[in-house]
């Protein structure tokens, strides 16, 4: 092959690489949308082709119309569930980070109390929940406690790991310059722990939603919650299958939204963190 002087200075391999990169960028959003679209169409086709009645398996359009029709009930239920989820996540962050800092300040405290955190984590929340609902009068508080138990461990364990994972030479440097415990925490351990903490937060975000839903199931229809799990249970007693699907759809969407939000937060925090280092003034 001959190369002309006027030809752009790019070879075939690089052209192919560019094309691949462009295709990948398009594929990153096009492929998930395509598969979701195909799944919905397949679902629709199965229902129509087999003439399945809606009280056994409703088609996608039936679920969508049910969602619109029941929107006032379901949106109120979604709000209740999300409120519990966010309160549980917030409490998990406060308690998890607080305990992690305490653990990092004292090995003795960590050795004494870490087993309790593990026990709380490995005991299934469905097994503890009935007891919690016996001892706690307020149903919302009971739900909050259940969701918190599920969500707080990843924050605690990740943040503890992060606070202890600061570079050894940097720690020596802090000793040489006579840093106080507070300075060490503020300028060395917390920045080192940030990526770990944010990773824990991503896991805890999804878990707090799961915790809230599971707790609602345990509390059952006798509870005063009125969240999405309560609506699913209620609809199942009435054999209102389309509404069950609609509520399920909302739960899944809420989970995706929480995941997306924590991922975005992780991105922004690590970015802002770098920028804040540039503009930091004291």
């Amino acid at each position: 092959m001959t190369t002309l002087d006027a030809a752009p200075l790019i070879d075939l391999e690089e052209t192919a690489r560019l094309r691949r990169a462009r295709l990948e960028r398009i594929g990153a959003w096009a492929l998930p949308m395509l598969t979701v679209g195909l799944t919905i169409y397949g679902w629709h086709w199965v229902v129509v082709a087999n003439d399945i009645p809606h009280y056994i398996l409703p088609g996608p359009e039936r679920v969508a119309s049910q969602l619109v029709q029941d929107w006032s009930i379901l949106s109120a239920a979604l709000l209740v569930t999300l409120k519990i989820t966010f309160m549980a996540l917030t409490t998990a962050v406060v308690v998890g980070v607080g305990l992690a800092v305490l653990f990092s300040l004292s090995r003795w405290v960590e050795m004494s109390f870490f087993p309790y955190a593990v026990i709380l984590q490995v005991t299934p929340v469905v097994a503890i929940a009935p007891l919690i609902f016996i001892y706690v009068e307020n149903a919302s508080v009971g739900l909050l406690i259940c969701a918190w138990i599920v969500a707080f461990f990843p924050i605690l364990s990740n943040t503890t790991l992060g606070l202890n994972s600061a570079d050894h030479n940097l720690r020596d440097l802090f000793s040489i310059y006579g840093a106080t415990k507070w300075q060490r925490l503020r300028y060395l351990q917390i920045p080192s722990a940030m990526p770990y903490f944010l990773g824990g937060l991503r896991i805890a975000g999804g878990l707090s939603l799961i915790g809230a839903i599971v707790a609602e199931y345990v509390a059952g229809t006798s509870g005063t919650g009125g969240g999405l799990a309560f609506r699913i249970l209620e609809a199942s007693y009435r054999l209102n299958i389309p509404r069950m699907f609609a509520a399920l759809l909302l739960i899944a969407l809420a989970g995706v939204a929480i995941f997306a939000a924590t991922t975005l937060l992780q991105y922004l925090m690590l970015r802002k963190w770098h920028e804040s280092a540039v503009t930091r003034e004291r």
Partner: protein
Amino acid sequence: MRDGAGIVAPLLSIENVTKVFAGGVTALNGMALTLDDGDFVSLLGPSGCGKSTALRLMAGLSRPTRGRIRWRDGAEAALGVVFQEPTLAPWSTVRDNVWLPLRLRGVSRRAANPAIEESLAAVGLAGFEGAYPRELSGGMKMRVSIARAMVTRPKLLLMDEPFAALDEITRFKLNDDVLRLQQSLGCTVVFVTHSVFESVFLSTRIVVMAARPGRVVAELQVDAPPVRDEAFRTSAAYAEQCRRASEALKQAMEMGA
């Protein structure tokens, strides 16, 4: 502080220092060394000869089992350290990394800024204040590390095999820079190295150490022109002193074997 004869007390004296680790290993046995102002002392020896232990003792990161380390009165805090790795905080800019020693002493960044900029200019990194460590090459990271160690204008600079991981071209360049910086700061340097050539090029004295147990086996004076440059690096006198140091190192390694 002056004694009766009017002689300045040594900046740091290591008096018969022994360090035994909890496991029973004697890392350093009866080391004696005196550091005066403007000295450039290399600790040269094989792995396990206790040179890093000696450095940690001087830095106050561990305490001697026996013997003692005495600073000249008032000089205790004037210490800078450069490790084998650049050891920069990845979440901070170059400026904030250099600010760290002053920040830990409660100096605001505004107040520290002239010292930070001077320090960075001295290592040839003016204009890189806003960069993050990940954006820099290995040699540049090491320069930031040196700038950070110098920002407090230390009386004693401890360097623990700082250029071991760098290529030879970068290493020569940084050797030149370290000498220039030492002259401008007028500080004393203790430099741990495996390299005979590096130690002869840089030092006024070479302390040769042997392993098992770690100890000092020889101390060589290096005769060099006032300016150590390319001409010195290629001179017969340099080659001769490298040969002498190699000989001493070889003996030390046979002793520790």
